[in-house]
């Protein structure tokens, strides 16, 4: 675990300020600035790529090394829950419970 000092607070406030500015920009900027078809096409792809990369790296790595552990099983259970259209909390709780139970074995 890392230390969560002033740097984290600074990063947190900066990130929140940027996220707010993005929202405000959408409400405020002239429509034609954001109407560029390439922009309209690309922006929705960003969360797809980033969320997929986050899933992969958070499941299969520890400290810069590729690993296979209980998190893979937790992700598989989460995938089943998603396919069954379970609510968000159920998906996350099922994954957490899977990891916790497998560690007890």
């Amino acid at each position, binding site marked *: 675990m890392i230390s969560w000092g002033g740097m984290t607070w600074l990063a*947190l406030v*900066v990130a*929140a300020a940027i996220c707010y500015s993005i929202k405000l920009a959408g*409400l405020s900027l002239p429509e034609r600035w954001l109407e560029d078809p390439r922009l309209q096409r690309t*922006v929705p792809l960003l969360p797809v790529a980033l*969320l997929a990369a986050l899933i992969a790296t958070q499941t299969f790595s520890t*400290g810069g090394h590729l690993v296979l552990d209980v998190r893979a099983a937790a*992700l598989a259970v989460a995938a089943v829950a998603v396919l069954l259209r379970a609510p968000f909390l159920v998906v996350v709780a099922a994954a957490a419970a*899977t990891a916790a139970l497998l560690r007890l074995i």
Partner: protein
Amino acid sequence: MITSDTRRGILRDALGIGIATGAYALSFGAISVTAGLSIAQTCALSVLMFTGASQFAFVTVIASGGSPWAGVATATLLGTRNALYGLRLAALLEVSGFRRAAAAQFVIDETTAMAIAPDVPEQSRLAFWATGLSIFSLWNLGTLIGALATHALPDPTVLGFDAAPPAAFLALLAPRLRAREPVAIALAAALIALVLLPFVPAGVPLLVVAVLVVLYGVRPQPGSPRNR
């Protein structure tokens, strides 16, 4: 004109979405505190950032050893879609000054979906504000409860919430995978991130993937210039 039945329906939906999102905030509070953030930092994220995917990403990128600035960059990139939501909402809401500044914080997936559903602008405005207030209240309440409950445990990892972030990201990703192209992009992004991971600092694979998908998105499109 909004009939009282329509108004009640909109308010009921807004409350329902708020409750569902509040439950999801419980898991954010739990994951964030398990990752090592303080209760205050966890709650500050929900009040100030108030956009779920970016919050989860910020927490997990830093917790897995990435620099705080990699966390900032990832949260920012995930938040860019809110600008397009704002664009769609601007015409419906017709807000300016202080009301626009307040409305901006509520520009997220759920409020946009609720606001663009009705055909009547007056109903859109009610749906936006009711959903925004409902989610903002319950998202922050859920975060606080999740953080406090997890903090009270001697060892929060015993509940497995340190292994849960991928599940949270998967639940956020799944609704975006309704066509072949996003599925292909998701698989390619996951693979590229894993291949890069052993060779670059934590957080960098995400930024490389973001650059690649932008290059893919803005590539020249022969034939159909207005392809969305």
